[in-house]
């Protein structure tokens, strides 16, 4: 039964019915006992009364005198009670009109039950030795049962009539009680798909406040996710359409250009714009791939130094005075992770560092470890990120005030995504010793981190720093 209302209704009606039934049984038993006590007392009373009415000289035996005159007339008892008066020697002296001729009982005194002519009788016997009589007053048991049954019937009949009424009342109260739920459901049903405003708790009973609170929390979450999505879409639109607008404009200029230098300049800009857009599309695809990657395997052991070597050697040659320093400790540092994603993250950080370098300087990769974290970091000597922007730097499409012309605003969010799916996190801070940014990749130490001493021996074991021109 899925309807709360039907369920409550059935439970309430069944419970009420059961309690009523129990009460009826109780009343039945109680009433029966009470009736018996009262009727027994009446029997005793009647017997004593009859016995006291008999003259002390005694009564002539029924057979000797005119029988009719000895029939005791106690009309008030006639219907329900029957009376026999026997002499102690066993002669029927008198009997009431409805009484059977058979002796009620052989019991000499007190209560007894007997079946006479198919009828059950309860009899009280009293003996009067001075008068030489025994008075027997009897009650039909059938009549007693009838009495109790009538009593119960009188009780049950209104009850049975009441049950439908009670059911109706329960149904109405349930409807009333559940109205807030129904109102809430109707309100939710009537909503637009876009309407994420919280449900007003004020009018609702406090029992469903937790439900409403969870619902509102969910609404808020969905709302935030949607807003985020919208922002991303807006940014993506801006980042994609702006270079396209630039491309189109430059193409039109090159067509309309009155002279060769203007045309050549426009064509050069087109090349730059195409390169930038290509890079942007590549990064967008990377983001999409990282977004989709939930169950990646990270069971390969990756040596950080090797990855860095690959990244550095894959970069196009540069004759600038920028040097790359890779701390030898990195060659002894391996982590369990996904090689592809780690390479992606470190390459982005490395390129980022190179982009922001002044003409000369050192990009430095190194590692530190505390008791619960392993930190691999890269430091550049660029302008760093303004402190108020550092938290925003990993947002998609965020480009700060000092943005470079090549940035798409996706690099750091790619790093963050790639690291997150490899169990690490990215932390950015400005260098404290000089201007520049320090980008840290942080692994919790519980990840299997190996700093194998053996491996270090044949690769620049104790060299302080390995300096190497950006090649």
């Amino acid at each position: 039964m899925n309807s709360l209302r039907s369920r409550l209704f059935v439970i309430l009606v069944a419970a009420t019915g059961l309690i009523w039934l129990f009460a009826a049984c109780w009343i039945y038993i109680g009433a029966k006992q009470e009736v018996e006590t009262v009727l027994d007392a009446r029997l005793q009373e009647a017997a004593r009364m009859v016995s006291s009415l008999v003259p002390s000289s005694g009564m002539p035996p029924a057979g000797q005198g005119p029988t009719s005159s000895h029939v005791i007339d106690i009309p008030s008892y006639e219907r329900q009670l029957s009376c026999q008066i026997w002499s102690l020697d066993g002669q029927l002296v008198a009997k009431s009109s409805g009484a059977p001729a058979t002796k009620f009982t052989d019991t000499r005194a007190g209560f007894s039950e007997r079946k006479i002519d198919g009828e059950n009788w309860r009899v009280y016997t009293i003996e009067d030795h001075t008068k030489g009589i025994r008075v027997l007053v009897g009650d039909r048991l059938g009549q007693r049962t009838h009495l109790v049954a009538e009593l119960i019937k009188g009780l049950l009949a209104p009850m049975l009539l009441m049950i439908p009424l009670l059911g109706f009342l329960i149904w109405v109260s349930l409807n009333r009680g559940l109205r807030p739920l129904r109102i809430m459901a109707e309100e939710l049903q009537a909503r637009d798909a876009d309407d994420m405003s919280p449900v007003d708790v004020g009018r609702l009973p406090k029992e469903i406040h937790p439900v409403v609170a969870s619902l509102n929390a969910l609404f808020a979450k969905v709302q935030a996710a949607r807003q985020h999505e919208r922002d991303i879409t807006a940014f993506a639109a801006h980042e994609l359409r702006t270079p396209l607008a630039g491309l189109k404009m430059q193409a039109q200029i090159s067509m309309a250009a009155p002279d060769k230098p203007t045309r050549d300049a426009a064509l050069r800009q087109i090349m730059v714009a195409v390169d930038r857009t290509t890079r942007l599309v590549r990064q967008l695809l990377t983001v999409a791939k990282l977004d989709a990657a939930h169950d990646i395997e990270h069971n390969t052991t990756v040596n950080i130094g090797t990855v860095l070597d690959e990244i550095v050697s894959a970069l196009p040659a540069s004759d600038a005075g920028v040097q790359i320093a890779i701390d030898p400790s990195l060659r002894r540092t391996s982590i369990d992770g996904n090689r592809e994603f780690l390479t992606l993250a470190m390459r982005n950080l490395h390129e980022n560092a190179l982009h922001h370098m002044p003409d000369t300087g050192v990009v430095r990769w190194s590692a530190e470890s505390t008791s619960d974290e392993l930190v691999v970091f890269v430091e550049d000597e660029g302008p760093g990120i303004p402190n108020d922007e550092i938290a925003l730097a990993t947002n998609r499409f965020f480009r700060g005030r000092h943005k470079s012309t090549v940035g798409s605003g996706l690099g750091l969010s790619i790093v963050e995504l790639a690291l997150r799916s490899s169990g690490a996190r990215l932390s950015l801070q400005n260098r404290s010793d000089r201007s520049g940014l320090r980008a840290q990749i942080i692994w919790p130490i519980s990840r299997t981190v190996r700093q194998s001493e053996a491996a270090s021996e044949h690769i620049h074991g104790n060299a302080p720093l390995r300096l190497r021109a950006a090649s």
Partner: protein
Amino acid sequence: MRILVVEDDPILSDGLRAGLGLFGATLDVVSNCADGRAAVASSEFDALVLDLMLPDGSGLDLLTEMRADGDLTPVLLLSAQDEIADRVKGLDAGADDYLGKPFDLDELAARVRAIGRRQSGRASPYLSHNGVVLDPAQMTATVSGERIKLSRREFAILAALMRHPGAVISKDDLEARLYGWQEEIESNTVEVHIHKLRTKIGKHRIETVRGLGYRMKLDAA
């Protein structure tokens, strides 16, 4: 026309500079709200081309501030978000026109001309005074129905003078219309161009107001 472009994308702003330049406009380009604010405060522009998403905020904020300060410079918004709601928001914030990216150079130029025209209260796309007619769209000029050839800068000066015939325009103002901030100003250019213009359209049409500047002579005599 002197136009301020607030756009952070280097290729697009370079394209705007070159592209609108082909239509005879002089462009100043800044790449963020703060520089845009400074530019608007220090110089007068015939129109503003404003990008919405800028590194230090929204172009809408700059626009709202300008309008709050009573700045009536016509503004054309450029935005990658070209849903109706975005357009409405931009126009309600005080923009005169709205163009979604990517856009057509010719259309942009036409729209910029149009908002400039509305600003100066003209119904006709042509500037005309005493038989001299300029067509800013084609950058052509006719004097008494006869077509004359003008260089880009000559055209710019003549257009500036003809926008408010009779009003004196200083040499500095004319220079500002010829050169963006980034361009080197050659000495005596304004004088040289005025001289050339006078030979082309008739000496008497441009009047020198000594110490103040130049103006179009009101009567054709």
